[in-house]
């Protein structure tokens, strides 16, 4: 999953990095096909080259040896709202049919059954980044037909499109899961199955989402992680298995 996400990044792109798997994916990309990737953290570190795997988005290793450290007002106004961020990474407890993401509450806002952390920078990243990539393990709980709360907007909110709502970015164009890759349909904005992992039956992916999942006419097969990718992930980037499970 992480290796697949890493391949989505092009050399030289400016990426707004979240913590956890996105951070792993970005550092894997830098170590392989995208050495010129510019990592920006919402904490204010620009062009970070962390000497250790940062546990938090504000880890001191993101500062030491970075190209620039600026205040958060500059991060959100002069970098994100200014349109300088090409790729944003998002995850979430719930992702729905149209790529809307919920990281706020399970249940009602006033009386939630589970209170999640909230937006952080996710709402504005989903609105401003030129495109966003979502990484999430597949499950019916995580992929409902509609999210309980829209924290980060996808492609269709209450029937209205991003353009109608005046959002600069293209939104969540691709969702990388552990069973397959979903793409947003350019017309409807609905998430459709675009590629599957080797030996994974389409049904397994269908069972993992809460709506009748459509498939691209021609389904691609995701090439498995190369030995290099596996070595970098397991032995170099996350030897202590902070983020890699199993």
């Amino acid at each position: 999953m992480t290796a697949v996400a890493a391949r989505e990044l092009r050399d030289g792109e400016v990426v707004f990095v979240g913590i956890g798997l996105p951070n792993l994916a970005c550092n894997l990309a830098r170590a392989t096909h995208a050495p010129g990737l510019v990592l920006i953290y919402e904490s204010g570190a620009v062009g970070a080259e962390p000497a250790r795997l940062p546990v938090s988005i504000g880890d001191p290793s993101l500062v030491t040896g970075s190209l620039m450290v600026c205040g958060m007002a500059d991060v959100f106004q002069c970098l994100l709202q200014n349109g300088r961020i090409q790729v944003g990474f998002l995850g979430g407890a719930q992702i729905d049919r149209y790529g809307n993401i919920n990281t706020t509450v399970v249940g009602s806002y006033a009386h939630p059954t589970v209170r999640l952390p909230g937006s952080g920078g996710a709402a504005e990243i989903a609105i401003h980044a030129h495109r966003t990539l979502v990484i999430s393990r597949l499950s019916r709980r995580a992929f409902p037909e509609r999210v309980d709360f829209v924290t980060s907007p996808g492609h269709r909110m209450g029937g209205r499109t991003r353009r109608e709502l005046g959002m600069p970015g293209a939104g969540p164009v691709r969702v990388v899961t552990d069973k397959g890759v979903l793409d947003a349909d350019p017309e409807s904005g609905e998430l459709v199955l675009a590629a599957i992992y080797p030996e994974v039956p389409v049904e397994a992916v269908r069972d993992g989402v809460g709506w009748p999942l459509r498939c691209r006419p021609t389904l691609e097969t995701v090439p498995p992680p190369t030995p290099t990718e596996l070595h970098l992930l397991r032995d170099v980037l996350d030897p202590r298995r902070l983020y890699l499970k199993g």
Partner: protein
Amino acid sequence: MRDAVAALVHDGDTVVIEGFTHLICFAAGHEIIRQRRRDLVLCRLTPDLIYDQMIAAGCARKLVFSWAGNPGAGSLHAFRRAVERGEPPLELEEYSHFGMVSRLSAGAARLPFWPLRDYMGTDLPAANPLIRSVDCPYTGERLATVPALNPDVTIVHAQRADRNGNTQIWGLLGVQKEAAFASRRVIVVVEELVDESVIRADPNRTLIPGLVVDAVVMEPWGAHPSYAQGYYDRDNDFYVRWEAISRDPVELGRYLDRFVHGVRDRAEYVERCGGLERLRADTRVCAGVNYGY
């Protein structure tokens, strides 16, 4: 610290203890808990462990925030118990990071609001009626707005300051500058109290001028388990341990008794932690620049 909190932090105050991961002043939070302040409106982008502890200790009436988790480790369970089960009841006012940053920018500029291009298509304005909009007098475009945040008191942790509060910070800056300028009263807590000449030698490094500071407190290790770039590392193990401690109210109570109520001051806290030398920063000193003319 005892005197500064006694004099400048009152029951019912709107309080900001800022610092984004970096320079979070736990020393001040613990002193506020020890002095049993009540009905505080606690504001921070990331409540973090410090506000989880203050909520558990019963200091908070309301929380104003944008991301309430334990970064890389799990949940803030005292916060979750309050919100999910009302134990204790806690009022929420919720924004995104950009919204909270903008509220403090407006406060620092003494403007009543701040415009931003945000929130379209999200449920946040429905959850928080203080997120509104304004029409641009040039393009007619509708922009989101957030109201200014002007706290009664802001506590800023920093690497160093002189006795007048001229404060220098490096590493992650968060919104420390905006919070200080937005606040009615400001307490600066530093790792090192330095001579004015140290500040004057590198004036571009100064983030907060003494003229907005009401009290300066020297408190080495005052940010632990958060960190101070160039002084000590973040105590990531403690952040991970907090998941288990905060999950169990009894455990959390024991922690507060032992490490907050059970100590007189920061020095005793550090002692009770068994010392923190293991976190001491290594040396990566940059070169200076020339201010000559």
